[in-house]
């Protein structure tokens, strides 16, 4: 390697973190370290109830929709879309096999759910990405579902809420097609913006890479759950590039708020109230 080559990013295996709420009765809170009663956390929308903790556990996409929208008001769209394997991608296992495993494990067909529903009686279009399905990454199906729902929101003149959870950004397994979804979704948001639509983007832990660098950052209003990891490049990559310690709280919601990229940090139990209030200011 010549010295003019860019420094190679040393990728080390990252500790594997369990996604989702474990099946047992008790679980450990990553925020405060306490062992907490799972049922109690569930009753509090997956937020730790230990004094002063407020740690936000991962919630699956369907659960998120239940928490956010009025009971039974959600009508899911485009459930018939499913991923193919346009590159014939094989890493340590073939991509179609990986997809089947992710589907079986999460009960989802893909990393995002889209549709329409009501929030405290206000009609809206809603999309949620699930960080448990191939890291919530965006491939052709996620890009297509989001684009269709943005186009429908434009036609129906409805507010749009997208809740992002993606450590993966654009999905590697579909290569350049995934990268291009970023352009496709952003172009649809451009038209929605021109039509006067209200887009509320909600960032959850984590929102990174190509998801952060496309739709998630384009909300008229951007909310983030507390202490979510939000940024472009992964912290490991940044650390390897700058060869220095990262600042305290780097790439958290609070960091992004301080640097001017988030409107408000909103705890999960307040999300409904906060979104409804914004809709009332902006939508006639």
């Amino acid at each position: 390697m010549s010295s003019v080559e860019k420094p190679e990013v040393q990728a080390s295996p990252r500790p594997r973190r369990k996604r989702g709420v474990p099946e047992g009765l008790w679980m450990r809170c990553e925020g405060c370290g306490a062992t907490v009663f799972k049922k109690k956390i569930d009753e509090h929308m997956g937020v730790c109830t230990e004094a002063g903790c407020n740690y936000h556990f991962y919630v699956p996409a369907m659960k998120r929709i239940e928490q956010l929208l009025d009971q039974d008001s959600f009508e899911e769209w485009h459930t018939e879309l499913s991923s193919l394997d346009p590159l014939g991608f094989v890493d340590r296992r073939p991509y179609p096999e990986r997809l089947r495993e992710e589907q079986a494990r999460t009960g989802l067909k893909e990393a995002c759910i889209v549709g329409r529903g009501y929030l405290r009686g206000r009609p809206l279009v809603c999309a949620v990405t699930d960080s448990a399905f191939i890291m919530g990454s965006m491939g052709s199906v996620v890009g297509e579902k989001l684009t269709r729902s943005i186009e429908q929101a434009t036609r129906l003149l409805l507010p749009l809420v997208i809740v992002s959870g993606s450590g993966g950004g654009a999905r590697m397994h579909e290569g350049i097609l995934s990268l291009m979804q970023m352009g496709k979704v952003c172009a649809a948001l451009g038209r929605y913006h021109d039509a006067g639509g209200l887009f509320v983007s909600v960032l959850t832990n984590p929102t990174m890479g190509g998801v952060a660098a496309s739709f998630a950052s384009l909300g008229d209003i951007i909310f983030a759950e507390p202490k979510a990891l939000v940024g472009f490049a992964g912290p490991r990559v940044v650390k390897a590039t700058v060869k220095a310690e990262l600042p305290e709280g780097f790439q958290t919601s609070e960091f992004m708020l301080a640097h001017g990229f988030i409107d408000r940090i909103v705890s999960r139990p307040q999300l409904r109230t906060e979104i409804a209030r914004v809709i009332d200011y902006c939508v006639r």
Partner: protein
Amino acid sequence: MPPAYRLPFEKPILELEATLAELEAAPGSEVEVRDKIRKTRVELSRLKREIFEKLEPWEVVQVARHPERPHSSDYLELVFDEFVELHGDRAFGDDPAILTGFAKLEDRKVMFVGQQKGRTMKDRAATLNAMPHPEGYRKALHRMQMAAKYRLPIICFIDTPGAYPGIGAEERGQAYQIAFNLREMSRIGTPIVCIVIGEGGSGGALGIGIGDYIAMLQHSYYSVISPEGCAGILWKDSKYKDRAARALKFTSGDLKRLGVIDEIIQEPLGGAHRDHRQTAVILKGRLMQIVRDLSSYPIDRLLERRYDKFRRIGVFEELPPVVGGNGDNRDSAAETA
């Protein structure tokens, strides 16, 4: 002169070139020698064609990163008749990783936006090897919006390993600025031509990559993630970069097959780095034609086409999927840096 930078697979070409130079330098002009020179030249062309026609994807990356490969600044010299550089983003600073300004393509006035690596160590240190910061993307967008005001066609040259992954870049909103460029470029009211001239590194490339016509130089690559990054995540070791390079399908041929780009612009035999002038001649010819074609569209029709161009990208099935598998393996990972 520093010694020529050589790639391992170029060695036979360089050896034959040395032989040819020796023959040509020999005094006299015996028939036998002239005949040998002629044969060596033919053999050299054949060798270049043979080697460069079947480069492995990882070798394509090496050619795309070749330090002697022409950069934006070289094309500004060789393709354009004038360049009036315009600095800065009006908000934070002047990112040297993206050059912007007025340029003349023969008699046509255009706006040039190009990622710039730099030839010397000093230049490369300043541009961070063409890895832009948010202010670079903001600078690019500022110039493009001005170009639309005066109906100047925009020419974007893409050549970056990726947007810079640093602390300042994150603090100043790398993700937001790229996202904003994607949305705004999709509706800038003037023709936009994007050419990948070397490295098309992920979101950092796409941040100046939304346009009406997308082309790639033959030995460039355009990828969702670097082969090193992909290998690190999926194979847990960056040494599998050649395997990742094969899996990612990011060569110009792959992208044409996938319907992502409009055209592959052929490079001279042996790659652009062997003949800057010839590469520039080919590129200039294509640019003039493309700009002429795009200029014939009314703006609303142009924007409609641009939207549809990206709208139709994606491969999926619209049928109820068969869900199977035993689902007991929890090992999964995917991310792009």
